């Protein structure tokens, strides 16, 4: 045993351990957060605890797009303003936020909740693909936009979907690969620049 080492009281060390499990939080930050909570007025601490519970109690997956929502169907799926003929397929709920920030997309979404990843044992059956096929059956969808990440797993997933959906005759597109806006040609790697050349267009 470490002589002279007294751990904090059990509820505090338990809280530290729980914080430590969160992404981006190491043991030091966890301890700092725990002691911060100790000094907090009780009402505030309760409000935080309730917010954490509410997130687990009230949040469900939208039965259509599979995004996380507190009211099923999700706001975008319910909206009459959205173009019902387009579905954009993304890996994670956060990707929807990124695309919404552009303000340039008016169609619907579908969240896969992951990508095909043999190393983690994740195959097509572990993704929300069955739900996607169900949505496409209605026949209203004219275009599917594949917006998985431009890495190996994302490309594997996109190709799987492309093969799966091509008999349906639905138009399929994917996001363009190329140069970041405000970037510098000199600093672009050869692969990105090569893709940008391939995808060049008339001006």
């Amino acid at each position, binding site marked *: 045993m470490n002589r002279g080492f007294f751990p904090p009281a059990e509820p505090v060390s338990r809280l530290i351990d729980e914080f430590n499990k969160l992404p981006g939080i190491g043991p030091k930050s966890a301890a700092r957060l725990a002691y911060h909570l100790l000094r907090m007025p009780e009402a505030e601490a309760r409000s935080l605890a309730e917010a954490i519970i509410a997130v687990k109690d009230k949040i469900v997956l939208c039965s259509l797009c599979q995004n996380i929502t507190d009211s099923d169907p999700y706001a975008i799926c319910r909206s009459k303003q959205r173009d019902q003929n387009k579905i954009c397929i993304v890996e994670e709920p956060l990707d929807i936020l990124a695309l919404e920030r552009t303000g340039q997309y008016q169609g619907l979404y579908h969240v896969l909740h992951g990508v*095909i990843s*043999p*190393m983690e*044992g994740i*195959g*097509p059956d572990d993704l929300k693909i069955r739900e996607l096929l169900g949505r496409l059956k209605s026949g209203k969808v004219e275009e599917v936009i594949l917006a998985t990440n431009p890495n*190996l797993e994302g*490309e594997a997933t996109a190709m799987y979907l492309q093969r799966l959906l091509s008999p349906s005759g639905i138009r399929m597109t994917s996001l363009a690969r190329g140069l970041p806006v405000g970037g510098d040609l000199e600093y672009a790697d*050869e*692969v990105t620049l090569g893709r940008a050349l391939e995808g060049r267009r008339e001006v």
Partner: protein
Amino acid sequence: MATTKSPRTASDVELINWSALREKDPVARLEVQAQRASGSLRVEIALRGKIVAAEAGASYVQKRIRVNGVDRRAMDLIGLINVVLFSPKDIDLVDGEPALRRRYLDITNSQADHRYLRALQRYHRVLQRRNYLLRLIAEHRARPEELDFWDRELVEAGSYLIALRQQTVAALDELARPIHDQLTEGQERLKMIYQSSVDKEAFQEALSAARDKEVAQGMTLIGPHRDDLRFLVNERDMNIYGSRGQNRTIALSLKLAEAKFIAARAGDSPVLLLDDVLSELDAQRRHHLLQAALGYQQVVITASDADRFEPAFLARAAKFEVRSGMIQAL
């Protein structure tokens, strides 16, 4: 400076002076001023040791690479300063494992072609994932159709690797033959052959044919990661039949050919580094090697003893002595 890694050690920590490691903020710094056909180049690499446990010395290093004063990634440095190193260990290239010869071809190609390096990295990432998937299929946790994407990527990156390795071996073979003739006074006829586990034109078909076997074994059985480079002397395979002396000379011919190869590819001559080679050659081969070395733009030769050199050669060389870690011009 050519590869950002030391050929002597796998761990960058060991590049920092041993006694400096026991001090606060241990650093090692290396700077090279190079003149290339395209202009002059200043490359700096600084290693800063980070101490994790005081008694163990620095546990890892932070590497900073700058080219002409601008920070660069390690990958961008490859190909900037071309170097061909021959060390006594290179005999392993001829009589060692196939993996060593593949690694040799990969390094040679990456120096000359950035696209090769990209394809190589992609190939290994695809290979790793494909092997995982093969095991999942064997355990009935994935379907064989899921291989389609990984097959296509493996074929695309793999065919490029094979094509470039074949080209390189053909070029090296042509360059090494006259050099080897000279070193052995025409006694030994060297032939280098790239032996591929698959015909690159029929890679996809071969993968489909091998699928059941691959699933059963849980790994990818064909592709450039299974290929080899063979050295034949007078039609005999030197990996099996070569003597140490023969194999050492082959490794040397290969390195001398590589220097010519890179010169042709890169537009200017690489620096040829011959580390402690003279002690292991007989007087005749030593003579021929020194003659051959005169045909290169810049050659650095190390030896434990100046007597190993012929006086005529020494007269044309700049000489330095290393004594107790200090370098002095003679």
